[in-house]
């Protein structure tokens, strides 16, 4: 009877380790796994397959790959300066303006929610731009570049998360700050991922329509 291979590894292989012989490679890994190889072996082979896929993408389309990464870095750099300005000068200022017209305390909580929602929304837009841009520039392997960018964006949050875990160990009052950073990291990574996949799918659909309509 066939065993079930690690689902996440298989998902990664199916979507990211394409290439000319992607299906044959996955078939071979499943055959060896069903012949008795361990789950750890399957994961090692998946990691190697993803590394080869990344290497192939860089070798075959290096300029667009590094172009996409450079564009992503540029957007994140601009965001680093502009995002706090929009949050404090625009959203916070407008919220306080509203509070002056509407000083009733029960509604303050509501305006606070509006402020936070807008602040988070505009931050997510920045990260969505990152995903969309990466998928547009490196359209030869959109899923791979989106995965790389998603991982990078999450990795950028890791030092802060580690710092906050350290704080959390000392006192539980740091729990909200840690939760906020973790939620922010997950939101940012998801914004990159889903917007990137959406753009990649749109590009693929328009390319297919163009190919079908051509004589």
């Amino acid at each position: 009877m066939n065993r079930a291979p690690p689902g996440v590894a298989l998902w990664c292989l199916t979507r990211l380790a394409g290439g000319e012989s992607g299906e044959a490679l996955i078939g071979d890994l499943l055959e060896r796994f069903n012949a008795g190889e361990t789950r750890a072996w399957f994961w090692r082979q998946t990691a190697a397959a993803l590394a080869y896929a990344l290497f192939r993408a860089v070798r075959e389309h290096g300029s667009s790959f590094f172009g996409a990464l450079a564009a992503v870095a540029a957007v994140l750099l601009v965001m680093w300066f502009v995002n706090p300005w929009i949050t404090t000068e625009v959203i916070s200022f407008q919220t306080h303006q509203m509070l002056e017209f509407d000083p009733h305390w029960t509604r303050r909580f509501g305006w606070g929610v509006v402020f936070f929602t807008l602040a988070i929304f505009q931050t997510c837009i920045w990260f969505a731009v990152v995903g969309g841009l990466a998928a547009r520039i490196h359209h030869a392997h959109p899923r791979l570049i989106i995965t790389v960018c998603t991982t990078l964006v999450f990795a950028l949050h890791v030092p802060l998360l580690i710092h906050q875990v350290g704080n959390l160990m000392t006192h539980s009052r740091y729990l909200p700050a840690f939760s906020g950073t973790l939620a922010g990291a997950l939101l940012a990574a998801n914004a990159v991922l889903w917007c990137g996949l959406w753009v990649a799918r749109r590009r693929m659909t328009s390319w297919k329509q163009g190919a079908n309509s051509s004589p």
Partner: protein
Amino acid sequence: MRKDALLGQSEILVLIAVLRLGEEAYGVPISREISAEIGRDVAVAGIYSTLERLQRMGLVKSETGEPTAVRGGRARTYFTLTAEGLRQLRASQRILQRFWDGVPKLEGRRA
């Protein structure tokens, strides 16, 4: 096309494995054959990367088999050496053999 160029180590290993296996040369036995010879597990993706390169160089050709349940409904891809592949493998063997012939015996003393 390369004339009598020395192939890389991974290319030589894969070509010899394909040659040894004959009609049964697909990813699984090729990876097992190489692992058994070099004494450690090899990345199957690495073997496919080499096979794709060899195919582009015209040294091997592939043929798709029937899908099987044990492979999740995926077909095997069988590889065979082309005449040019066999010629280049022999040329590499000759180059390496000539080179080794010029080396004093390694056993028992420093070369």
